[in-house]
């Protein structure tokens, strides 16, 4: 193994190239007067939905009117007081058994206005698959945590430790059959982001 490694590195080093400098990332990147409104409209454009709520209690009130949540048989949640969970992710040993989850309520760290994405991680979660395997997904994000663009998003991320993180922008989708958009390819068929003003209420 090390021989291939050495051969590749030697092949690269045998080419003497004039080193070029790194560019600056300090630029006049796009910002929005109303980042929350921008986030909501982009999320809608990519097939998701954004609901702003004052409190977690208000989130639950809204969820009670969401058909996908009402009709869900198996629900899980990592946000206490929200989602009326029927199972706890942490009690599950084998992630495969999470394929029955109809509706998942999970936390997102922050939202990005320019592209409707929410940053989620597996920190504190025993399994990360509910983000992708659940039939429907709701993400809870503090409304104070909306950044305008991806550059500011990456200023928040350090990746010092082992872990998984993902920007999720809307429901799973495909356009592989004649460029016709189909929502719900493999993952969640619907995607709601709740931007909550007071998350500890």
């Amino acid at each position, binding site marked *: *193994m090390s021989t291939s490694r050495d051969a590749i590195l030697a092949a690269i080093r045998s080419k003497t190239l004039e080193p070029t400098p790194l560019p600056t990332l300090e630029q006049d990147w796009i910002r929005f007067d109303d980042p929350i409104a921008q986030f909501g409209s982009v999320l809608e454009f990519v097939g998701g939905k954004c609901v702003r709520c004052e409190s977690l209690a208000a989130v639950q009130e809204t969820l009670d009117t969401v058909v996908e949540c009402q009709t869900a048989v198996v629900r899980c949640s990592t946000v206490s007081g929200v989602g009326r969970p029927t199972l706890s992710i942490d009690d599950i040993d084998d992630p495969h058994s999470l394929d029955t989850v109809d509706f998942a309520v999970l936390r997102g760290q922050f939202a990005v206005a320019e592209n409707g994405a929410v940053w989620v991680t597996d920190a504190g979660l025993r399994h990360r698959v509910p983000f992708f395997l659940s039939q429907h997904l709701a993400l809870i994000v503090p409304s104070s945590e909306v950044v305008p663009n991806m550059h500011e998003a990456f200023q928040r991320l350090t*990746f*010092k430790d082992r872990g*998984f993180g993902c920007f*999720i922008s809307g429901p799973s989708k495909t356009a592989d059959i004649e460029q016709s958009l189909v929502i719900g390819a493999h993952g969640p068929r619907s995607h709601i982001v709740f931007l909550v003003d007071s998350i500890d209420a």
Partner: protein
Amino acid sequence: MDHAVAAAKFVANDQRAHWHDQALWFVRQKRDRMANSLPEWETLRDTASAIKAYTVTHLAELLEQFEENATQLGATVHWARNAAEHNEIVHGLLHDHGVKKLVKSKSMLTEECHLNPFLERHGIEVTDTDLGEWLVQLRREPPSHIVMPAIHIKKEEVGELFHNILGTDEGATDPTYLAEAARHALRQKFLEADAGLTGVNFAIAETGGFVVCTNEGNADLGVSLPKLHIASMGIEKLIPQAAHLGVFLRLLARSATGQPITTYSSHFHGPRPGGELHIVLVDNGRSDLLGSDQFRRSLSCIRCGACMNTCPVYRRSGGHTYGTTVPGPIGSILAPARDAKAHHTLPYACSLCGSCTDVCPVKIDLHHQLLSWRKEIGVRGLVPFTKRFSMGIASRVFQHPAIYRMSGWFARKLVPKLPRFLIYNRLNTWGRQRELPDFPKQSFREQYKRRQKK
């Protein structure tokens, strides 16, 4: 494979060729809308281009840094000089873990290495889980586009394929219905898989992590259930710092499909608890390209496919006519670098319009490189006889004013009187689809002389 010969078959079905052209132009227009919505678009392209130039000129250090950091996070890094080594490494890992069923998310590198047939020969069931890739896998054909692998397939054909394989209703053509059937079948594959393999869109030297972008969520499903995750990447996929992802994630989906970002941009740093992560770094000709002043910049490619969507030749000839894993303008540069003799027609599958260069998010000078390849193919003596013959004559004519004037005279006075078969024959490839222009009665020189006399 001769591109022009293969393309002649494609355009023989006029209606289908137009349908293909329009499907891709639609994607190009979506890309334009996204690009125009950002005032800093050109700044982003310049920045991305400079980051990639830095990467290419610091590649060895960055690879070592990536290896060290990835290892620290608990991943195992493997190095493969070529496709065969890559396939052996992957098979070795699968064998050691007793893997019978593998799910893959889209990876053009594994297409380049022909991994699927290799693993199948060793009795491993491989499922490509990107819907487009699964369609071409079921049809036993290669992808015709790097981002939209099944762009050449009509919904009626998908309906027939699924009717035969999944038992869907005969004659069904509704994409929603067909995609739903695929969802059910592929979910089963995810649940049964013993290992997941992904490609890599960007690997970060500074952190030892990497990013995979999908719209379907298939990469995440594929590696979040089984314990073994293998990630295959070309050594040029590296970027120096995590902050640079901000630039590339803004450009990639906007350029590729006209989305503000892919639905899922997954960042993997080390294996998940109780799992294993293996990263295979593949050279396979990339370090050779590094040494070429003319073609080095092709290593900056982030595989968005924008150059294909805009290319008038790709749109009207289809991806399969290129006979390579990566078709279109960028493929016509990469393929001859690997095997100039086999792919010598590809740099000519180009009108030199320059549209690819205009849309490339990392500002690769695509049409200049294609022109350079034509010269290179001439130098290597790979130009076919008819072209060499006629170019040789043209060269003589242009070098000798007397012969030039005489040829002009023949063209004006004699050619219009010649029988058709003498003008339009095997030697005149230009005249195959075209009529010669009407020759003027007098040359410029004759007209000029006459005016001077007045």
